[in-house]
């Protein structure tokens, strides 16, 4: 068997996750030893007509056109990896679901909204079956490599289902709550090595929530910080709104 044919695709997103892959630097060359990269629009003009062993998809589904594209990709690939928050949980694109789509359109395009049709933001797995998830905005490169290894070996990759706090403690950071600001680490699933807290910022929840978060408990904790309820809701929904609004 030859090297697996791998292709990268992007739906609606900022393409930062592709860049994270391009940014692997010389590690990228090691990865390229393992796979046969057949499509990567951002950096390649080559096209592949056959089946993909692995399709790696970034971005959310936000209109009929992107829905069609992702269905075509699924039909042509054996294994599909959704990577980046936009693809796995909707990411920041999901925020627009929190108000009627017409309102958002009007805010940006005024009376010309008809020219640019849009739908609610959906995650890739709300449209087609997804085999592997790499969460994060942007993806954490070591996790990308980990999942790629699992996919190439045909093994499952269970996303850590415990809180970012765990990794944060491993890294011995001073807790943001002790510094007087709120952090979504306790309800966000780990896997990023507590990236943001290591850099002195709070966790924004970009990897999505753990499977059974104590939402009431978390809101109680946040409420102790002089925040109005709307800001709390905003905070918890920065990345998680797409799942939230369509699951209802």
């Amino acid at each position: 068997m030859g090297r697996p044919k791998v292709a990268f695709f992007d739906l609606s997103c900022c393409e930062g996750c592709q860049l994270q892959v391009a940014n692997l630097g010389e590690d990228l060359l090691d990865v390229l030893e393992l796979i046969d990269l057949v499509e990567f629009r951002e950096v390649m003009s080559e096209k592949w007509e056959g089946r993909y062993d692995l399709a790696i998809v970034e971005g959310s589904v936000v209109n009929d056109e992107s829905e069609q594209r992702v269905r075509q990709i699924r039909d042509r690939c054996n294994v599909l990896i959704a990577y980046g928050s936009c693809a796995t949980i909707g990411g920041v694109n999901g925020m627009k679901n929190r108000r009627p789509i017409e309102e958002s359109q009007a805010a940006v395009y005024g009376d010309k909204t008809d020219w640019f049709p849009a739908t609610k933001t959906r995650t890739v797995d709300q449209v087609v079956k997804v085999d592997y998830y790499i969460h994060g905005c942007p993806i954490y490169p070591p996790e990308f490599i980990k999942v790629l290894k699992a996919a190439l070996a045909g093994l499952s990759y269970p996303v850590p289902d415990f809180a970012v706090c765990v990794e944060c403690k491993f890294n011995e950071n001073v807790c943001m709550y002790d510094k007087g600001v709120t952090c979504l680490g306790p309800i966000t699933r780990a896997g990023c090595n507590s990236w943001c807290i290591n850099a002195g910022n709070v966790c924004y929840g970009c990897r999505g929530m753990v499977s059974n978060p104590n939402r009431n408990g978390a809101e109680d904790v946040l409420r102790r910080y002089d925040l109005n309820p709307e800001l709390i809701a905003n905070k918890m929904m920065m990345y998680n709104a797409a799942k939230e609004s369509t699951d209802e």
Partner: protein
Amino acid sequence: MSRNLSVNVEFLTRVEGHGHIVVDVAEGVLKTCQLQIVEAPRFFEAMLQGRSIFEAQHITSRICGICACGHSLASIQAAEAAIGFTPSEQTLKLRKLLLHMENLDSHVLHIYLLAAPDLLGVKSFMGLMKDHADAVRRALRMKKACNDVCDILVGRHVHPISCVVGGFTMLPGPKELEAMHALLLQVREDLAPTVALAATLEFPEFERQTEYVGLISDDGEYPLLSGDVGSTDGVRKAKEDYRAITNEFLLPHSSAKHARLSRSSYMVGALARFNLNHDKLHPKAKETAAAVGLKPLCTNPYLNTAAQLVECAHCTEEAIAIIEDLMDRGVDPSEAVIVGINENHSIPVQAGSGVGAVEVPRGILFHHYQVDEQGIIQEANCVIPTGQNLQNIEDDMHKLVPELLDRSDEEITLALEMLVRAYDPCISCSTHFLEVDIVR
């Protein structure tokens, strides 16, 4: 010659985002010439309404992964202006450093991985691997270096973490400065062979009189993070008047807004900056310009790539200078901020309106916010460089296509693709998709 021609290239590649080019020539006469932006709109402005101004950087960084640091800087500048906060000198210095790294990183990506394949006649960097493996390795090494500097400085390059309204949540210590310095010295080494390679490249010939727009200032510094907005047609306005510069308008074939100033269109980006401020470039950058034969006022858009190379030299030298200065003076660690959404009230907030104008890789980027006294965003607006360039690209195409009609379909298509790529468009930013559709 009266010719009908139809070329159809779907998914223009090696650009950030998705677009189509539609050219329609019937009987030798150019009828339509459009750059269609079919990228799905993402409604960032709408998402920002009702949120804390302290979240604006985090959210708008996600407009674009390639210029995430640029968006962050413009967003922070606008946000700080809106709430009436003045950043410290150290903070400004570190932000300048970050912007240099952003421009350097993006330019290296564009020059080597996106533009060079065209100029060397291959399909992509994968093709380069055969005859120019060293160049690819060098490009990846330079990119990695930029990336590593950003990791140290702001946690990561894509969607920087520590650079926020108020300053930095993490500051480099002596060890970190040392590490960044070493990385940049290596970039400096790699730049020499890059310039040598670029000097051998032949850029297509094409000229069109164009208005160039960018930041201008009265001090001796090549303006990237501060200054007024000016043009080669003599316009000069405060950045708060950005709407009078960009005059945005919508076209049905593009989900991105277009812009015009004194003429039907204008250009922003490395070439515009070079044309406006070449005398302020670092001597090393001026040397580079001479080596690749770039002279002001240059009206060949294909040479935007050359101007990027000149800026690479400038940014590298300036970044090294900043780091050396910081190594001498030391970074004051007590300036690190803990902000979150300001629930600790560490930053005073007042109602107001603020504009940020920053020269990011593809040109001048504007962010504009209006906040209430709680720091809640009432109104937000972003004007993206690629959006400003779209009309100019179309105008270039209008002039270029008739000049090319005696060439083959493939050559015309390639020339158009290369033209669009020379602008290094970031359609993700302006809203993603580029497709060439020539009907003659």
